[in-house]
């Protein structure tokens, strides 16, 4: 393929004109590989523009998850009546129902449930760029451990790069995974205070979730209130959480 990716993007964005455009079109006719590259990039653009497809998939996934919960309950009920353990199961059921009643009467929607619904550790970066090779190595190693869920080892490397925002952010996630909430709060608060980086919104979101995990309900409400009022990727989810918390 004699055409660069940038030229393909320029073509799709409508930035090629005159001779450049004619040349590009002639190449497109001749070069199958180029034609496929254009198809791929065009389709990806179409997908990004199609919010409906995103939304529908999310709703169908949600429906599927709900059906799992419902079918587990039905299956449990069937098993219960089938086996000779009926009496023991009844007793267990009374305990479970009693426990649930106790939980639900105290908390309309438990913080644990909220956390498990909304918390997902950030996806590791696949490519890292930094000024020094040594730094690159440390980050790459940290991400390797992070992907393997070895958060203690990952932390050692992230902490060695504490001046880097990326490292700071991921060290916060490691602290969450290790249930060291105070330190996680420190990491994310530093990112939020810095305010000139790409992780600010995510850090704010995780701060809210940490407060939930750590049973600091009033701080969580304050944090999600703040997020819900901002033009943030997480504002809709923050509003949803607030409905449960209030």
């Amino acid at each position, binding site marked *: 393929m004699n055409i660069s990716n940038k030229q393909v993007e320029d073509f799709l964005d409508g930035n090629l004109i005159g001779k450049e455009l004619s040349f590009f079109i002639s190449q497109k006719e001749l070069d199958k590989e180029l034609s496929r590259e254009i198809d791929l990039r065009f389709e990806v653009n179409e997908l*990004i523009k199609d919010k409906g*497809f995103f939304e529908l998939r999310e709703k169908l996934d949600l429906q599927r998850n709900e059906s799992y919960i419902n079918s587990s309950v039905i299956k449990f009920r069937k098993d219960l009546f089938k086996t000779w353990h009926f009496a023991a199961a009844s007793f267990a059921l009374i305990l479970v129902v009693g426990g649930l009643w106790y939980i639900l009467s105290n908390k309309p929607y438990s913080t644990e449930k909220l956390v498990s619904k909304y918390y997902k550790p950030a996806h590791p970066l696949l490519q890292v760029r930094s000024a020094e090779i040594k730094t690159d190595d440390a980050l790459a190693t940290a991400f390797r451990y992070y992907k393997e869920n070895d958060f203690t080892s990952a932390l050692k490397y992230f902490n060695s790069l504490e001046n880097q925002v990326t490292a700071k952010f991921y060290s916060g996630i490691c602290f969450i995974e290790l249930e060291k909430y105070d330190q996680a709060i420190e990491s994310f608060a530093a990112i939020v205070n810095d305010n000139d980086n790409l992780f600010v919104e995510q850090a704010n979101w995780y701060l809210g979730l940490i407060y939930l995990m750590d049973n600091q309900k009033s701080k969580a409400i304050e944090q999600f209130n703040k997020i819900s009022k901002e033009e943030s990727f997480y504002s809709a989810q923050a509003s949803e959480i607030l409905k449960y918390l209030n």
Partner: protein
Amino acid sequence: MQEFKSEEILEGIQNRDTDILDYVYKSFFNQIKDFVTQNDGTEDDAKDVYQDAILVIYQKTRNNNLTLSCSFNTFLFSIGRLLWLKQLNYRKNFKKVIEESAKFIELDEEISNIHWTNERFKLYQDHFKRLSYNCQKILELFLARIQLKEIARILRLKSDDYVKKRKHQCKEKLIANIKGDPRYDELVKQHYLKKD
């Protein structure tokens, strides 16, 4: 449970209406489940097939005004049936006798084509969602033809040149991740097998 007409259901799917989606699932999923489970599939397979069938209907109603010549139930089941038979074929799991469990209509190749496009879209979407928030937003705003200056303002980035640079980086990262996914080769093969 409230009943809906076929036209209302199609419109509801097009608008991603939660009530309609719940109604369709509760009313019609079991037919697909019966067919899939009677033909070497599991309940999970049936759920995949059901989701894919709804996505096909969504794309089909989006592409043109769909008028059904049968009930919605039969149409949905026929798509689910076709997708499952293709899946069995793909898995080299040829069944001599297919257990038919409900009324169906024969569908044209367009349904298959929409399904394969959806499979590619799902792959792209999976990788798009893994991009950072800013990358996602830059690409979305750029493709919505928002001016670079405005994107810089919305995302609090330093300049329009920087937005341009980031847009390029984000798109290249997305494309590289898509191409690096093992599903990509298979989907491309399926796509160009038909085209070439």
